[in-house]
Each structure stands twice: as C-alpha cells, then as structure tokens.
C-alpha cells in the first residue's frame, strides 16, 4: 500500500558536478555526471514551474559549484519568477562583483558561502585548491549589499580546533546565519573517514563553544549546528524522513529522495526528462521505497521514536549494517551499534600525527 504523502517543500538542484574544489568529504557521488549530460536551461526552468505547482517553497542551488553554470543568473531569475525562494550554496568561486550584482538583481534570496576552515593551509589540505583568500574577498563584497548571508563551516578532526577563528570570520561579516556542519560519513567522506572523524574530546569542546556562541549571538546571528551522528544516542531524522519533504535533482535529471541514495543497490531513479515531478514524487518507486513505516524492521517497527527519526538514515544503514532497511546503526537501540563503537574506539586510539600521515582521497572533476 502506498502511504499518503504531502507535497515536497524543498527542491535541491544539483546544477552541475563540476567544481573548482576537490573536497575530501564532497557529498557528490563517486560517479560524477559529465558536463555533456547536464540538463539544459529550459529543462531546469520547466522543473522550477512544476515544483512551484507541486507546492515546493524553496529551491537550493548547489552542485558541484553552481556558479560553474554560465546560465546561473538566468536560472535564479527563472526560479524566482516561478515563485520559489532561491538559495545559492557556493564556494564563492568563480565569482566577481559584477556577477554578484547580477545575481542580486535577479532577486537571489540567500547566499550561502562554504568554508573549509579558518586558514588557507587547512582549506587547501581539504579542498586541494587555494581559495580561502577569495572567500574572504567575497565576504567583503557581500557586506554593503542587501542579501541574506549564511556561512557554512564544514567541521572534522582537522579544523575543529579553529572554532574561535571561524566565529571571528563570521562575526566580522554581514552573515545573519552560521552553520557548523560536522561531516556526515557517506561517499567521499566515508572513504576518508579515518582522517576526518573527530575524537570525543574534540566534540565535547565543540559543543561547549557552539552553545556559548548561540547564546552570545542571539538576535544578531542565528547559530545552527549538526553533530557527527556516530556520537549520537539516536539517529538523525535523515532528510526529515524519506520522501516527506525533499526532492533532489541530479545534474543529468534523475530525481532522488536524498543525495546519497544512489549507493543503495536496486534503486530505480526516474528522470525528469521522462516524467513530471508530481508523478515521480507521488508514484516513483525510489520515493515510495522507504516512505512511511511498512518497510521498518525491529527495533524501529515498534519503537516510540519512529515518527520522530523515521528509522534514521537508509544510506548509513546500508554502509554500516549492510542492509538499507535496517535500523540506522548509530542508534543506541540498534543491534549493530557495536560496529559504530568500534570505529569510534579506533579514532580515539589514533593520534593526530598518525592520521596526518595517511593519504587523502580527493574528489576529481567530471569530464
């Protein structure tokens, strides 16, 4: 039986997989879409209209690097005209003041700039690119302009000690929102997990600092944070529940319930080139696969928290328990929780010096 569902609220648009950065925790799949396979301007514009009709409120332009699309200003304008709230999630490269003014003139609602750390050396180690100085320049350009700015700091073992400096960067900018997003371990991040996963002590220090910042900056900057769920007692409500709130469109036009869903064997993703967004949302096999509760196993099936966390993350269940229908193994009630505890024990017994001798797997660029 197909559970009833409401409409999606957000359309995550992976406009391209091309990117000037090569971050070791990139959320893109291991198999990247080539430029030649990307959806055209007209195909995206049609999607924005369909999404607004379906009840979607927000379009998140991401990638890869969305600014790598030469039609980015046109796409912003089209999504706004369709009635969507448009966020640009960017590394700030390639960008100059003329392009920024064009984006603002196209009514871009929200500019989210990612940071790899507070210094060029850490940022370069993580992204294999020199671009930290450019990001600081972008902050200067944003300051006199009227647009919402979020700074997104991606956190892990190698930069958690820079919290104070990262806060200082945010406080001297025009940002009204900071995200401290600890890396989640899928795809590229899973491949580099041994070097990225923080220690318990680092995490405790982070939590103390982020909570103090939240209090201190109230009314001025909204501070939000995500902890690495390996350290959590219960799993995160991944994507707000499978097929409940979010639709993600890949550069070549496949519609996914989450960015990592392609790792689950046997999933059939439908293309927006062949079906409407509404058909895919309501009847698509991938969207219905883990919708509702009928797919759940114990202990989720009879758990009081199942309507709160929806069993956690399906991709993580696959990666850590070998079964996408299992309870997310980060859950303390999961019979596989010991797998996660073993990973954490290995992290705390490895010194920072040892992890820095390992070799990063950088994300390449598509053809």
């Amino acid at each position, binding site marked *: 039986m197909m559970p009833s569902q409401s409409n999606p609220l957000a359309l995550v648009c992976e406009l391209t997989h091309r990117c000037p950065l090569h971050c070791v925790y990139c959320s893109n799949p291991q198999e990247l879409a080539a430029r030649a396979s990307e959806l055209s301007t007209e195909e995206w514009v049609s999607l924005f209209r369909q999404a607004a009709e379906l009840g979607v*409120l927000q379009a998140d332009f991401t990638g890869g690097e969305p600014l790598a699309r030469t039609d980015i200003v046109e796409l912003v304008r089209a999504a706004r005209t369709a009635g969507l709230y448009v966020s640009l999630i960017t590394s700030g490269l390639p960008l100059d003041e003329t392009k920024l003014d064009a984006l603002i003139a196209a009514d871009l609602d929200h500019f989210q700039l990612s940071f790899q750390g507070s210094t060029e050396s850490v940022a370069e180690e993580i992204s294999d690119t020199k671009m930290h100085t450019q990001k600081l320049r972008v902050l200067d350009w944003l300051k006199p302009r009227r647009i*919402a700015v979020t700074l997104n700091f991606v956190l892990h073992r190698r930069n958690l000690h820079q919290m104070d400096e990262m806060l200082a960067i945010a406080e001297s900018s025009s940002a009204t929102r900071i995200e401290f997003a600890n890396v989640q371990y899928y795809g590229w991040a899973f491949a580099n997990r041994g070097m990225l996963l923080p220690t318990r002590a680092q995490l405790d220090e982070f939590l103390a600092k982020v909570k103090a910042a939240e209090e201190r900056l109230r009314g001025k900057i909204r501070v939000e944070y995500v902890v690495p769920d390996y350290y959590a007692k219960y799993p995160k409500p991944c994507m707000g529940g499978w097929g409940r709130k979010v639709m993600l469109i890949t550069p070549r036009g496949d519609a996914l319930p989450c960015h990592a869903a392609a790792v689950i064997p046997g999933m059939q993703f439908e293309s927006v080139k062949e079906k409407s967004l509404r058909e895919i949302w309501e009847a698509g096999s991938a969207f219905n696969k883990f919708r509702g509760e009928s797919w759940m196993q114990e202990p989720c099936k009879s758990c009081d928290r199942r309507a709160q966390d929806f069993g956690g993350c399906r991709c993580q269940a696959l990666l850590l328990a070998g079964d996408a229908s299992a309870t997310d193994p980060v859950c303390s009630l999961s019979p596989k929780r010991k797998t996660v505890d073993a990973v954490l024990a290995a992290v705390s017994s490895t010194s920072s010096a040892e992890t820095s001798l390992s070799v990063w797997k950088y994300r390449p660029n598509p053809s």
Partner: protein
Amino acid sequence: MAIDSNAKPQLAPGCRLGENNNQRVLLMPERALRLNGPSLEIVSRCDGKHTVAQIIADLQKLYSKAEPHKVESDILGYLELLQKERALDFSA
C-alpha cells in the same frame, strides 16, 4: 533580549512573505513559518515604519474582544521568536 517598544522592526534580508496552497508563510533561509491570522497581522506590519507600540495598538483595536494585556504579551512573545530566528532588524 528585551524588545524596545519604540523600535521599528522590519524583515531582515532574505526574509519575505510567500504563499503555498493558500497558506501564507514567512520564507527565510532554510525555513518557512506558517502565518495564521494574528501572526500575519504582526509580520505584515514589520515594515520599518511601524513601532512596536503601534503594532500593539493596532492589534488591540483589531482584536478588541481579547484582553489588551494578553494581546501585548502575545505580540512581544512572537517578536522575540522572530528575533531569535534572526528574521527581524530593529531600527530606532
């Protein structure tokens, strides 16, 4: 954080009214708040022209059957929530 009754609240950059399935919403970065009768009346007066005191007086008139003190404390509570969401700028 206390709210100054002479301050003039206005929606912060990136925060604006929107509509979805005939439901008015306040759109903001990564969020949307549903607006019902009174909250819509408050938000639509956060235009940088009305002072907090004027918003309170307007709504006390509009909801004249309600206890005036209750209207005032509800408005202040709602403005504090919006401030915490970083949806408002206050000018003197």
